[in-house]
């Protein structure tokens, strides 16, 4: 098991290196930089800009910039955000945490609803419940995240039950810790539901088809022949085997979740990594864009790693490979 974990971890390093190199190359191809706009400002002298450019190594070719960037990342320093005028590390960590919180809660909501619904639909195959579930799944798969977020925004504005965007109220700093927690949760819940809703349909359909496949297996017939109760057959025998293929789509669903979070964050003004990426993109804060892309990829790679570990843990055949 440990050698498997080690091997998977080792595999991540070239991947993240490649991703950072590719993003760096792309950002270096981008026309203009943060200082192009500044140089139009007559109050800032040309010397200052040249000085600042040298400070950020922007006068060097991209591979030299990459080398400097990589060296400081190894020291845990993600550079300095030119647009925000603060160290990028603190900015990134805060936004990364917000995105993680949003995605994690959405993950729990989506899987918590999709798995029971999928089981229910499979057990009551061809009943009206099954049909209703498959209709919901089709609709859910087809509603674009953009539309869902806008509808949620409209819902929040029309009912006033939820705050319209943001992660905390204006008076957050004057609240007691309990109020602060409640305030954060209140802001988090609607974006998380939107994000979960877009993910839910696929998982539910997958759970249904996996369980239906297992219910056709011979050991299920054998269990029934031994006179076991239907509940015992489904939950103890069939379900445990049906869960395995589901763990493999856990990794795929993470990728969709992160892209979905990008949209939800930007529309519902949730200060996460996706929103930061767009802000950095518009400000031409190229190092910050690279940081964001690498961080998002890191989140995805770690998520996939956890999915693989879960799979190896639940299915001993995987570990031997």
């Amino acid at each position, binding site marked *: 098991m440990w050698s498997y974990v080690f091997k998977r971890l080792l595999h991540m390093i070239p*991947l993240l290196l*490649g*991703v950072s190199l*590719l*993003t760096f190359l*792309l*950002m270096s*191809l*981008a*026309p203009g930089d943060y200082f192009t706009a500044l140089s139009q400002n007559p109050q800032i002298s040309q010397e200052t800009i040249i000085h600042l450019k040298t400070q950020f190594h922007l006068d060097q070719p991209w591979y030299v910039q990459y080398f400097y960037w990589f060296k400081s990342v190894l020291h845990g320093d993600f550079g300095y955000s030119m647009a925000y005028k603060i160290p990028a590390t603190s900015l990134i960590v805060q936004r990364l945490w917000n995105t993680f919180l949003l995605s994690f809660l959405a993950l729990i909501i989506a899987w918590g609803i999709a798995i029971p619904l999928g089981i229910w639909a499979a057990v009551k195959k061809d009943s009206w419940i099954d049909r209703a579930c498959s209709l919901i799944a*089709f*609709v859910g*798969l*087809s*509603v*674009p*995240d*953009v*539309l869902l977020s*806008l*509808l949620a*925004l*409209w819902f*929040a*504005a*029309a009912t006033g039950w939820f705050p*319209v965007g943001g992660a905390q109220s204006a008076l957050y700093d004057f609240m007691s810790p309990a109020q602060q927690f409640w305030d954060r949760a209140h802001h988090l819940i609607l974006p998380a539901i939107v994000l979960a809703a877009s993910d839910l349909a696929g998982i539910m359909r997958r759970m249904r088809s996996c369980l239906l496949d297992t219910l056709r297996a011979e050991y299920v017939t054998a269990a029934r022949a031994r006179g076991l109760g239907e509940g015992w057959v489904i939950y103890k025998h069939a379900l445990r085997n049906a869960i395995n293929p589901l763990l493999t789509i856990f990794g795929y669903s993470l*990728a969709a979740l*992160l*892209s979905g979070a*990008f*949209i939800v964050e*930007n*529309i519902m003004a949730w200060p996460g990594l*996706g929103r930061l*990426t*767009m802000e950095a*993109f518009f400000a031409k804060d*190229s190092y910050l*864009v690279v940081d*964001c*892309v690498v961080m*998002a*990829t890191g989140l*995805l*790679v770690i998520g996939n790693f956890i999915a693989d570990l879960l799979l190896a843990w639940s299915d001993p055949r995987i570990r031997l490979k």
Partner: protein
Amino acid sequence: MNEIATIQNPTAEQPLSPWQLFWRRLKQRRIAMVGGVILVVLYLVALFAGFVAPYSYDRQDRDRFFHPPTCPRLSGFRLVIPRYEQLPGTFVYRAVLNDTKPIHFFVHGDKYKLFGLVPATIHLFGTGDENHPVYLLGTDQFGRDVLSRLLYGSQISLSIGVIGILLSFTFGMIIGGISGYFSGWTDTIIMRLCELIMSIPALYLIISLRATFPPGMSSSQVYAMIIIILSFIGWASMARVIRGMTLSLREQQYVLAARALGQTHLKVIVRHILPNTFSYVIVAATLSVPYYILGEVVLSFLGVGIQEPNASWGNMLTAAQNTEYLRNYPWLLAPGAAIFVTVLAFNFLGDGLRDAADTKS
């Protein structure tokens, strides 16, 4: 010869080709056919958008910002629409019920170019009166007809999906075929590259790619840019699957035979291996078109895709991001409904195609 064959086997029907079998199975799935019909209608309407749309996409009615959708009524044998009166100082409109005008068909209106070539002024319907307009889906914050913009936008949004798929799947098939056929270090390099592209969450990669293009491009350049960006990301997953299929296909005897007959590697890949993956490719393509459409929508929505005054479903939705607009003028969400119907139709059709292509069941 023909007579002998008939005598020997009098009841034999013409054996069905795989495509005919496929079509027969597809026809049995009503929901797939519904999806297909919806798509045919959508694409036809997009093709004739200038004709179907009552107005041009950038025609501004400065007297009627946020005009609500006009609801046609039946009066006698004609469809009539009431005139709407603006309450002074607001964007609230009231229908004047006894002041109606009939909807005429094939009326003269704004100039447009059919298929981008033929100049024309005939529109499918309209009132023919500037002061008594027909806005079936209302107007936006600049007084432009939402329905007309929706139709013009469909030209961009719908075509990007198909062109993007054609481009990226062609590349994906060829690269995947090469990778699986030659294996060795070619395979390793290509597959590592695919992994790299697929490991970055799609929208983050899209935005980094977007950064490499200069600002201030013309609308057709932006259109091409979006297709290039989406195809750059899309080919990787296709190439991986095709590579896997090629790995097993190249061991087949007919591939060996083709090689023995002296065909070039490229010909073997394109003529003998790739056609065997077509049934998978068609299903995957149908189910992937929505991702390309949504890619355009997100880019334009975020303001880095199709630019005003050109219409696309994405940049039309940008207005709906304003909660004040959203609450009072919900018809601005119409492009969202259009996206939903399109994606649903593609999913219906794709699901049916997958079942029809699955000969095992």
